[in-house]
Structure formats: structure tokens, C-alpha cells
């Protein structure tokens, strides 16, 4: 019996930590959606680029926590450039253009990564936070703790930014009513660019932290992105808190499903949860409207 | 007078913390033209959306020809016989005038040939026959509004909801529109018409309902409405006064 409880505790903690990792990837996606009404299907590929950047900096001797601000800033500008050159054009087209356009970007970025870096796996040498921490019967990797803290800080910071700053208020105004925001003198195009930049910056932070525990390769983004889409839909498109809650739910569902049902179908409860939420409460768990 | 074809009682609609409708009552007499007016932000379009089925009301009752339609799916309301136009025109951009009207007619006539024949007739009726090959997005504002009317008529409604069809028209176009409205009434179709400008309704409306701040403040004859103190206050008085009124 005691053993069962130990296993349960371990699964719960691991599931929550996995969920925090998903939250890390998902918050940027949900912000972009909230403001622009666009699901960036290339979000995972932005994550991949950030991971390559963090890996490159690690080779130059900058450990991820040091490289973090650099990658975040670089990804912010990358996001703005992508918006100005590409996403802006998509918004002018039919609604499905944003869906297949960002999907094309996904294929393009994956191909470029494969052409430039080959499909080999790279992970940073002399990985920091490699030790294991024990809390009673529960043990976790130090890297997972660092990543979890990073996820909480990032979610909190983003939430505070959106709620309490001037730009954040303008972003919210755009996300609530585009036309009204224009009438209020907000430059919607600029806000879109800022949102896209911040979305990319978030994923910059996520990618850098992820290098603590994961190798980078061209398809790495795709492995995380599908979960991120589900997380965002569960939590409510556009809701930062929702992304956190959705991510924790997905993490726990996946781990418990894997153990108590069968490992090979551990994603089934996650996707079923998505379909059920979409059917019953399309605005998501914490979504408005 | 006969039983009203549409009877709305205590209609409310909440958007988050904003209460857009706070108890709207209105009756629409069959075969007549009823005007729904009110100052900006009074909740006319919201009430309109709730009746048409585009919005789910938060409370209240909407009885159409004896059927409760509050909260019913949008397309089902159309099947019951309520057609509508939009304040900001919503054309099917890539369709020709004929195709867009045919789309409406397909509701009662599943075969495209039959629906096209009906659509041709309606386009002649609204005066768009010679433009039936043009794309919806290439029309003038006045013609786009006519197209919306044609599309709504194509579902052969009992009740036609018109949302500011007169707005933005030149005086001559307005006159033409009035002629069209009379012709529609002559076909036995009831009209509920939202207008911001009261003068437009005066000559044609049999009754008007005035709403302000989400409530019905006046029901009756159009000429009486302009003399009603509550209506005058709502339109001219300070906003604060309207809220208390």
C-alpha cells in the first residue's frame, strides 16, 4: 500500500513537472493566438531554432541560464521579422491562408534546419543540473526543477505584462475588439508584431531551458508543438493562465494514463480530453467568451 | 388586432460584465412594418441578433408564430421563417449576385435549378436582375444592401429583419428603398426594421418600439414617439439621464 502511494506521488510530481515543461512551450502560442486570432503552426519550429541557438551559444561557453537573455532577445526580433515579412501578408488573405501558410513555414524551417545542421541530435556538453534530487520517496532531476521554475516565472511574467503594463493593455484591447482598438488609436499592426515577437521570445526562453534536458534536432519542435496546441485549446485560446492549467492537466493525464492504463496509449486520454473540451466547452477551461 | 407574429418579453443579454439588454419587450404585428429605434449603444443590434438567432440571449422569451426561439440555433431560426440583413453588409464575396441569392433559395428548394429560378424572380423583384452576373463584392453599397434583402427574401420568410438598410444611402436611393419595402409588405411579409434615424421610419412604419440602455421605453405610433418625453430624453438628454430613465 505504502508503495502504491509512493508510486502515485512520484507520478503526480513527474506529471506536474512535465506539465510545466508543456506550459513553457505553450504560453507564447496562446498569446499570439489571443491577440492575432492566428494559430502559428510553426510554433514548434521556433522552439527548435531557439534550441539550436542555445546549443550554439553553449559551444561558445555560455551555459543556458547565461545565454537565456540573448536567445530571448534574438527570438523577439526574429518573431518581428517573420511577422513583417510573412504573417502580415497572410492576415490579408483568406482565413485558411494563415493555417496553411504557417504550416508551410513549419516545413520550410524543418527543411532548412536539416540542410544546415543535418538530422543529427545535438545536446550541450557538460550539462549543468544533471544531479538527481530526492524528496522522501519522490526523486526528480534538477534540470526538471529549473525548467519548472522557469515555466512558472515565464507564465507569471507574461501574465503581469499583459495585465499591468501599457503595452499589455493595448494587446488586450486588440485581442478583445480589433475595430474598437483601432478607433482608440492603437496601431493594430504594431501590436500584432509585438505579440508575435513576444510569442517568439517566450519560445526562445523555452528552447534555451529545454536544452538542459533534451537534445535538439530538426523535428524536435514537432514533438512538443502538438502537445502545445492541445494545451492551448484545453486552457482556452488566448488565456495565459489557461495555458498553465491546461499544461499541468495534460502532463498529469499523460503520466497517469501511461501508468494506470497502458504506456502505448498514454496520449489517448490527452487527445480525448481535447475533443471533449472542444465539444462541451469550446472556449476552453479558463477561456472567456 | 390579431395576435402578434413575434412577441419578445423581458429579453436580456450579458456580455461579460456588460449588460447590453436589460429587459426588452416588443411585439410585431403580422403583415405590418414595425420600427425598432434607439440611440447609439441602446442595444438595437443586440436585440436584433438575439431574435435572428445569431446571439444567445441570457434571459427572456422570444415567441415567433407560437414557437419559443430564444437560444435556438441560428440556422433553425431561418428555417422557421425569419430572414435578416446585416448592418455591415455580409456578402458572399466570391459569389455572383445570382449565386448568392440562389444560396438563400436553396433552403426551400433543394434542387439548384429550382432555386435559381426562384432567385431570378427575386432579383427582378428587388431590381438587381441586370446585375446578376456581377460578383457580390463589386457592387455599390446600395446594391449590396439590395442583394442582402434579396438573399433574405430568397428563404421565403414570414418575418424579415432589416438592420439599418437605409443607412448610407443617398436620398434618391432611400426613396427607391421605401418603394421596395412597400412591395415586400404587399407580398404579405412582415418587417421588423432597425433604424438609428427616426425620420427614415416615419413615413413607412406602422408602429415603433424605442429602446434605450437595453430597455424598451416606448411602444406605439411613430408620430407619438417623437413627442414622448422619455424618448426625447433618451435621444437628446445627457446619457446619465437616459440611464435613470
Amino acid at each position, binding site marked *: 500500500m505504502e508503495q502504491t502511494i509512493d508510486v502515485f506521488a512520484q507520478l503526480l510530481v513527474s506529471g506536474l513537472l512535465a506539465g510545466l515543461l508543456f506550459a513553457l512551450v505553450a504560453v507564447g502560442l496562446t498569446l499570439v493566438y489571443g491577440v492575432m486570432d492566428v494559430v502559428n503552426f510553426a510554433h514548434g519550429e521556433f522552439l527548435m531554432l531557439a534550441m539550436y541557438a542555445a546549443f550554439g551559444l553553449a559551444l561558445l561557453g555560455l551555459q543556458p541560464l547565461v545565454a537565456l537573455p540573448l536567445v530571448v532577445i534574438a527570438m523577439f526580433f526574429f518573431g518581428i521579422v517573420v511577422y513583417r515579412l510573412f504573417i502580415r501578408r497572410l492576415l490579408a488573405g483568406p482565413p485558411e491562408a494563415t493555417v496553411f501558410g504557417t504550416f508551410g513555414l513549419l516545413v520550410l524551417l524543418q527543411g532548412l534546419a536539416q540542410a544546415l545542421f543535418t538530422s543529427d541530435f545535438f*545536446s550541450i556538453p557538460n550539462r549543468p543540473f544533471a544531479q*538527481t534530487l530526492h524528496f522522501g520517496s519522490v526523486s526528480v532531476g534538477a534540470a526538471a526543477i529549473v525548467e519548472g521554475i522557469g515555466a512558472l516565472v515565464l507564465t507569471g511574467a507574461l501574465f503581469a505584462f499583459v495585465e499591468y503594463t501599457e503595452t499589455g493593455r493595448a494587446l488586450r484591447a486588440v485581442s478583445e475588439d480589433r475595430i474598437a482598438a483601432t478607433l482608440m488609436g492603437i496601431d493594430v499592426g504594431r501590436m500584432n508584431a509585438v505579440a508575435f515577437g513576444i510569442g517568439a521570445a517566450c519560445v526562445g526562453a523555452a528552447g534555451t531551458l529545454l536544452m538542459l534536458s533534451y537534445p535538439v*534536432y530538426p523535428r524536435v519542435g*514537432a514533438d*512538443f508543438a502538438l502537445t502545445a496546441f492541445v494545451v492551448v485549446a484545453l486552457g482556452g485560446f488566448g488565456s495565459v493562465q489557461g495555458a498553465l492549467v491546461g499544461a499541468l492537466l495534460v502532463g498529469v493525464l499523460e503520466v497517469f494514463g*501511461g501508468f494506470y492504463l497502458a*504506456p*502505448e496509449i498514454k*496520449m489517448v486520454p490527452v487527445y480525448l480530453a481535447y475533443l471533449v473540451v472542444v465539444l462541451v466547452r469550446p472556449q476552453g477551461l479558463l477561456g472567456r467568451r | 388586432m390579431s395576435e402578434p407574429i413575434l412577441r419578445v418579453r423581458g429579453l436580456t443579454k450579458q456580455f461579460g460584465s456588460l449588460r447590453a439588454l436589460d429587459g426588452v419587450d416588443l411585439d410585431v404585428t403580422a403583415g405590418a412594418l414595425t420600427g425598432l429605434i434607439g440611440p447609439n449603444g441602446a442595444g438595437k443590434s443586440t436585440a436584433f441578433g438575439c431574435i435572428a438567432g445569431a446571439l444567445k440571449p441570457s434571459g427572456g422569451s422570444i415567441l415567433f408564430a407560437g414557437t419559443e426561439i430564444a437560444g435556438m440555433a441560428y440556422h433553425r431560426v431561418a428555417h422557421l421563417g425569419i430572414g435578416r440583413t446585416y448592418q455591415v453588409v455580409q456578402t458572399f464575396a466570391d459569389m455572383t449576385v445570382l449565386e448568392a441569392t440562389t444560396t438563400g433559395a436553396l433552403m426551400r428548394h433543394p434542387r439548384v435549378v429550382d432555386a435559381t429560378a426562384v432567385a431570378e424572380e427575386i432579383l427582378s423583384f428587388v431590381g438587381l436582375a441586370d446585375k446578376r452576373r456581377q460578383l457580390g463584392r463589386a457592387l455599390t453599397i446600395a446594391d449590396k444592401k439590395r442583394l442582402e434583402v434579396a438573399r433574405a427574401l430568397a428563404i421565403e420568410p414570414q418575418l424579415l429583419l432589416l438592420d439599418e438598410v437605409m443607412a448610407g444611402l443617398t436620398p434618391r436611393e432611400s426613396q427607391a428603398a421605401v418603394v421596395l419595402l412597400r412591395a415586400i409588405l404587399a407580398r404579405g411579409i412582415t418587417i421588423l426594421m432597425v433604424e438609428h434615424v427616426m425620420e427614415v421610419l416615419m413615413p413607412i412604419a406602422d408602429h415603433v418600439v424605442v429602446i434605450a440602455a437595453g430597455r424598451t421605453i416606448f411602444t406605439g405610433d411613430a408620430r407619438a414617439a417623437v413627442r414622448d418625453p422619455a424618448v426625447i430624453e433618451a435621444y437628446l438628454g445627457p446619457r446619465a439621464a437616459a440611464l435613470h430613465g
Partner: protein
Amino acid sequence: MRRLILTGLAAILAFSTLPSASISAADGPEIKIGSILPLTGSSAQTGAGLKAAQQLAEDLVNGHISYPLPMAGARGLPNLGHAHIKLIFADSQGKPDQAKAAAEQLITQEKVVALIGAYTSSTTATASQVAERYGIPFLNPSSANPKLHLRGFKWFFRTTPHDGIFSENFFAFLADMKKKKNISVKKLAIVYEDGLFGTGSADAEEETAKKFNYEIVAKIPYSANTTEVTAEVQKIKAAKPDVILITSYLPDSLLYMKAFKEQSVDVQAILAQDAGFIDPGFLRTLGKEANFVFTREVFSLDIKQRNKSVPLIDQLFRQRFNNAPLDGNTARDIMGVLVLADAINRAKSTQPDAIRTALQQTDIPGERTLMPWTRIKFDATGQNTFGAGIIEQILDQKYETIWPFAVSVKEPIWPMPAWSKR
């Protein structure tokens, strides 16, 4: 519209000016061998290495420098007037239907006398079907699916051991260890990625384990693109196996190793099927945490103890392919071309029947291969039954060959120390 056309033209120009790999031209009569490889698509990187390896083998046969390998330095095929062999490559895109089309093209248009390929088991399956229909010998140097040779085909020959043989190696190793070190192993956990590779390995392991009366306490498939394996590892831990048999690609192998450590999964040994566990990233990422893992390998430079040409061929290959070392796939494909050239030479003819007969009579001693095999000799199904893998253990962050004992360079450490004591 014009912009679109211009973009398209620019794209076409851009890739028409890129250098395309040249096919080595030879003088005199040529004997065409068709090679089907995944040159684009998801396995393109491996395909490029295999192409370079086969071209190296082609040059070995056509060249004059002799190595202790069949046909190397023969200046073409002596029995056919020193005719040069010429490989004609066709792209499978890693897709079964394209592999089939490639085989048809090579046979009907290029009039090749034999086919070699096609790396992934699914493409080998369809390409060899075509060869069977046209009656052209098909030599498969590197697909491991244990069913490929059991289809009753007349024209199919496979030099490489399949998963069944590889997994028998594990159990032979365990038996040897029982004799040598008196170890006691009863309960096994099988963990595998649910793709073609993992499923094939795991099925073979399960079958062999049953044959040798081991108890399988857990059999856990998982998707290779998972990002989290706590549930799987908890299941393994609860099953209390003596040995874990694991088949993974790199990212998932790292997840498992980290989780084994974090959850203190202490077993006697972890036996892995190459792939992720021999990727350079495995050691680079895990450092000393990777120590004591056993992995099956197809090839190792340690084979130089038996055939001194191994390091030389490795050098030649590095020169051709971005300094990449010779590995299990490339070494097997070099052997494939050499075996085929040897058979055509002995056939003294390019007639399919003659080549097939010569292939059936192939008998190359293990010392004349790059591989740890005892010999190359096909059984009635066309399978070389003398193939084997080797087993390496990571000791002091280096892969050391420890089995078969004949080519071993280090003593194995068994059991692996508990995670808490490392």
C-alpha cells in the same frame, strides 16, 4: 502571377547549379548494378552515407589496390574481361511505392543485371517484389526485418543478420556470461519504440526469450517522439526485471537513461539495440552516466584484430564522406557490393540465372569481411546464416567490444553498480 513564375524559375535554377554527386565513369565494357537507396526524404542522410559507401566499394572492385576483401583490387571482374562494375542509383524517397518504381526503372530501362538495396525494410520489401517478378537477383545488405527472407522468394539474398539473429546474440551472450561469470538472469523487461525498428527487435527478443525459458515481466512499447517517460519507467521498476532489453532512438534513449537514474531503477544490466545508444550524442550528453550500458553493434573498428583492412577502409570512407567514420550501415553496404561483384565474376556471365547460382554458391570466410561474421553463405531462403552482431559495453565513457569473446578487448562489468553507489 509573373512573380510566382520567376520564383519557380529561380528555384529550379538554384538547384540545377548545385553540384550533383558524380557517378564514377569507367572505360571499357560496364556491368550495371542497380542500387535503390533513400536519397531524399526522412532517411536521406543515411542514404547519402550508403551511396558513398557503395561507390567506395565500386571503386575498390574497379581499382587495383588489393585488400583482404573479396574482389577488392581486382581491376573489374577478371572473368568478364576486367569489365568494370557500374552502380546506377535510384531514389526510393524512403517510400515503399517509390522503391518499387525505382526497381522497375532500373530493371526495364537501365537493364541492370542485379539490384542492391534498399536500407529500410519496407522499401526492401517492395523493391525485392519487383526483382522477384522480373527474375533479377536482389541483394539486401542492411535491412533487419526478420520476415523478409521468409517470403519464399527465389531471387532474394540477404547478407546481414536480421533482428532474430541479433536477438539470439543477446541470449548467447547471456549464456556465455552464465558460464563465465556465473550470473543468474531470469526476468526480462522489453522496452521498445513502436516503429518498424523497435517492433521488429522486440518481437524477436520476445520470441527468443521464450525459447530459452526466460520470463518476460514487462513488454512496453512507446512512441519515439514522446517527451516524457515516467509512467513507462515506473512500470519497469514495478516489474523488477533482472535485465532491461531496450530499443530506442537518441532522444528517447536519453529520456530513459535519465529516468532510470532518477527513479533508481537498479538492474543487473541494460542491453540495448544500437541506434540511440550508439549515437555520438548518447555519450556526449550523458557522460559517465552512460557507463555500464551494453549495446548490440553491427560493426566496430575493433574488428581490425581480424581483418587489417578495416582501418584503411575507414580512412578511405572518411575521405569521401565528410570525415564520417565507417559504421554498421556503411560497412554492410560495402560488403554487399563486394559480395555481388564476387558472384557476378564467378558467374562468368551477366545472365540472371547464372548470377543467382553463383550467389547460392557464395562462401566467403569471415576473415575476408569487414564484419564480425563467421562467413557469408546463404541458406535456401537466401539468408546468410553466419552473420552475428557484437556486444559492446560503455566503460569509462568508451565503447569497448566485450563479446564475442574472440574479438573482445575488455572484460565486461556485471552487474552494473547501483545508481546510488556511482
